[in-house]
């Protein structure tokens, strides 16, 4: 379990993290989302005890990580995938990490196999591709067989097969009862992986929400209707508080009437419906609109945003 309490970090004038509060629970994968510069990496560095909070605290299993007897066995982490000396082999790199926490060389070989790097383990890691570097970082995170796994942007640089692999890996870790905390700035990467989301923007908490609740937020309040004799159907639906806008000659968008009500009205009026589509935004859209106010680094092209 990771607990963050009133966590704040200022770098000079910049408030990188601002009064964050959340708890990451065991048994599920929690996605940590926010646009570039939102403060995800900074939060993780504070959880690791690398950056000192300006105020507030971050604990792992109730204590700061640095107070754990063997930190790697409590929390496995991936911060930056390239954090290996380029001429050191993957095997030597992991062995050097392992011995600090009394972890055996057999375990090193095991995690190398687990991430699929056994065959290149003795080669200099500087020659690794981005994805292989990510896998090595994940191997390091798993070394201590930890209760808590925290990964900063692990999907970066992975191919589709690799993304699939890491998704199942993390879900398995969660199913084994571990706490899994994974950051990303892309909802599309996280939505198939995570059961819970902590969304931040400009260092502040925007949502701490379960996947079903987030999906409920994605449900829109309008329905797109195509039908024979559309004008007659519009006449039937017209009522107080109902808002009907026509998109083109044969399509209208209706607010204030539920899809099943529309269906019944059409049946009663003897009108054939061609389609009846409740509006459903993508989670990406929801994420974008949630964080729209806090995106710091806009591209120059106008962003198209739902709602």
């Amino acid at each position: 379990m990771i607990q963050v309490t009133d966590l704040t970090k200022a770098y000079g004038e910049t408030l990188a993290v601002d009064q964050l509060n959340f708890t990451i629970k065991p048994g599920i994968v929690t996605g940590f989302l926010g646009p570039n510069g939102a403060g995800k990496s900074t939060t993780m560095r504070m959880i690791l005890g690398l950056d000192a909070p300006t105020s507030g605290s971050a604990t792992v299993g109730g204590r700061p990580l640095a107070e754990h007897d063997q930190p790697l066995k409590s929390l496995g982490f991936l911060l930056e995938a390239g954090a290996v000396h380029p001429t050191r082999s993957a095997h030597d790199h992991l062995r050097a990490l392992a011995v600090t926490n009394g972890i055996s060389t057999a375990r090193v070989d095991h995690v190398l196999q687990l991430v699929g790097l056994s065959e290149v383990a003795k080669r200099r890691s500087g020659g690794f591709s981005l994805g292989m570097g990510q896998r090595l970082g994940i191997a390091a995170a798993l070394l201590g067989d930890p209760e808590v796994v925290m990964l900063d942007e692990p999907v970066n640089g992975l191919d589709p097969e690799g993304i699939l692999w890491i998704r199942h890996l993390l879900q398995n870790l969660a199913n084994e009862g571990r706490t899994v905390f994974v950051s990303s700035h892309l909802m599309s990467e996280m939505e198939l992986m995570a059961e819970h989301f902590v969304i931040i923007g400009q260092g502040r908490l925007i949502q701490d929400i379960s996947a079903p609740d987030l999906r409920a937020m994605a449900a829109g309040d309008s329905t797109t209707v195509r039908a024979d004799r559309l004008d007659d159907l519009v006449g039937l639906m017209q009522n107080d508080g109902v808002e009907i806008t026509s998109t083109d000659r044969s399509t209208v968008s209706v607010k204030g009437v539920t899809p099943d009500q529309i269906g019944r009205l059409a049946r009663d009026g003897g009108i054939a419906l061609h389609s009846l589509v409740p509006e459903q935004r993508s989670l990406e859209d929801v994420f974008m609109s949630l964080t729209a106010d806090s995106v710091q680094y806009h591209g120059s092209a106008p962003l198209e945003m739902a709602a």
Partner: protein
Amino acid sequence: MITPLSPASKAIPTESQTAPTLLKDNPMTTITASPTPSVQDSSVIKTKRSSTGKVRTRNVIQSEWIKFWSVRSNYLTLLAAGFATVAFGMIFSAVASDGQAPGPAAFLTNPVDVALGGVGLAEMIIGVVGVMVVASEYSTGLIRTSFATVGRRGRVIRAKVAVVGSSVFAVAGVAVTAAVIAGQAVYAGTEATVPVTDVLDVIFGTTYYLTGIALIGVALGFILRSTAAGIGTLVGAVFIGPNLLNLLPDSITDYFLKYLPSEAGSAILTQVTTPDQLSLGAGYLVFTAWVVGLLACAGALVQRRDA
């Protein structure tokens, strides 16, 4: 469907003839076909948790030992420094005439000092090794992993000091002894040569000095966190600076020059001290104070700063 990427997959029947979205509910379809072993094959969980000890200084030293000797450039550079010590010592000795070494070593008159004429080059190489061992961890980001896995940062510094110190001490000790023997064997000057057993104090002093320079490099690496800045400061402030200051009138330099690390060090490098050098005892004291002081400064900064 997602096409399995590895050729090996062709041998394995998959049932993923469906849309990619179904993969979520069908976790073991395409993933088994990947070159990466599946998560379920080799469970991440080890049912028996390995010993729950503590991180001990011994473990961290072991880790730093693996790190140091698994980077080829570290031991090649150390060997180069040893080789330079012996080779230049022999060259200077072989061409010495009238008890004087030629060219840059012309100020050396004693046959033992002539045989150790290569130390001036070796110290730069060795100092650079000290800087690199630390600064490369900052440039790759590995230092964060090191600090977080060990928990207490002071331990990482002490372990690096132990490993770099003992490695350099061993290599330098052998090289310096070899240089004295080989240099005197080919000595062409007029002074009487000296048996090794009579100059053990010079051999120890020189080895001590080279070890201290490596540790100054380590301290500068932690303080400046950059290879370029570390090497620049080492070469500029420790090696070249004092030589430039030497050009100032004696009335000014007499007061402080002899207290600089390289000058204090020179008092322990030779048997023949001049009046503007410190005494042997004071030389050890001042030089050691520089090394310990800079390391203490590094320790304090590392504790205070964000990693």
